[in-house]
């Protein structure tokens, strides 16, 4: 059981979502995050230049069985990449256990990826 955290461009969220469904990931959570990185633009407000180093991105969080990890990563990679600085990051880490709050079940069987 693994957790995949992917930080992607907001503009690519829809495509990534479709690709993840196609890769049999049926459930994931996401949130809007702010990041600091190398992708920045100069802006001017009332004659004062300033740089925006705060980058707004979407972070997708997936927990799935091991065999779904590679397809999910490929799905994200193929849809979220533009080649420009700022395409994002993917982190994969092990997960000890998972519980269904409603039934009390735990383990792999709780996960919503296709069996």
């Amino acid at each position: 059981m693994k957790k995949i955290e992917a930080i992607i461009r907001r503009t690519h969220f829809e495509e990534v979502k479709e690709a993840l469904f196609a890769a049999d990931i049926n459930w994931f959570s996401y949130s809007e995050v702010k990041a600091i990185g190398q992708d920045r633009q100069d802006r001017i407000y009332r004659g004062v230049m300033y740089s925006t180093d705060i980058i707004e991105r979407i972070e997708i969080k997936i927990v799935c069985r091991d065999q779904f990890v590679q397809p999910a990563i490929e799905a994200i990679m193929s849809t979220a990449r533009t080649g420009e600085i700022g395409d994002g990051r993917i982190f994969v880490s092990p997960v000890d256990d998972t519980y269904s709050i409603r039934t009390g079940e735990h383990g792999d069987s709780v996960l919503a990826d296709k069996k």
Partner: protein
Amino acid sequence: MEETVTISGLDTVWVIIAAMLVFFMQPGFALVEAGFTRSKNTANILMKNFVDFMAGSFLFWMIGFGLMHGSGSGFIGELHLFDFSFYPDTNIPKECTLIFQTVFCATAATIVSGAMAERTKFSMYIVFSIIVSVFIYPIEGHWSWGGGWLSELGFHDFAGSTVVHLCGGAIALAGAIVLGPRIGKYTKHGTSVAIPGHNLAYGALGVFILWFGWFGFNPGSQLAAEGSENAIAISHVMCTTNMAAATGGLAALILTWIVYGKPSLSLVCNGILAGLVGITAGCDVVSIAGSAIIGFICGCAMVCSVTIIDNVLHIDDPVGAVSVHGVCGLLGTLLTGAFALDGGLFYGGGWNFLGIEALGSITVALWAFTLGYLLFWVLKKVHGIRVESRIEEEGLDIYEHGETAYN
């Protein structure tokens, strides 16, 4: 009045409609100021705009109208508490004069709130608003519009570049100096930090509303519409007013594009207002070509002024009220002396008229700045005019009002 003038229905309706348009400048100011500042202070700035109009309406009727329009001396009118019956009916009833002058008074007060935004104690702002409506504005207004010494010299300020805008702008400058900059506005090394406003859509809508309201502010100041002479006058003023707004905005667009590499919306908004403020003094006496030039000069001057006040003088004026109303109010009055078709410097009128315009506008600026500075300084010593740093950082909405604009 040397002869009896009968009240004209048409004139009255025109002035009443113009007063409504000038009233509608209040939401314009409110939106500009709210849009150009941060969302944590929106309720506060909206409340200040309401206070200016509410206090102004009451106090100008109570005391200001008498001080401004009572015969009195050349310096000050007379004290007529809760009474405006001394004022004669002219082509419009005295009630009509009262409401038209009230909305102007409130405009002068409301200019200041933008420059003092995001850091002023609300209670002290109310005190300030009262003093402007009962004292600072009516007295200098009397000089030009109430039969005072400036009007006797031949000082011409048709709708208030000096009387309303320069007065408000000079007080705004005094307030911004006494208050000091917002936390984080300048680094230790003295460089200016941009604090972007939270909603430029509000700001832009506010500017459109002000532009619209100015069509009452200037053409309404003719105070008459009946007869071909007045009809031509208000139509001409309408054209010069609109033209100066357009060229003022264009000037800011071109200048920011050249200087900063991109055309800046926030400064174009100010540029439009700069042109409007600039043309207000001379909108009836300059040609339409003259108004285009005045607007353009004021737009350029405003961009330079914003940069100098922010980057060199380090005076924090979040919405640019000092540049728009103070600098362009002064400039517009001076340019009236240069561009007036009758008596202007560029039309062979010599230096005399320009000299009177300079004398009038500079005196009013000094009056408003000195009294404003003194007032804020006293309030600062007695009670403090600035909120605590914690309140400033978390937002005036929560601590000063207990309610936030966005929930």
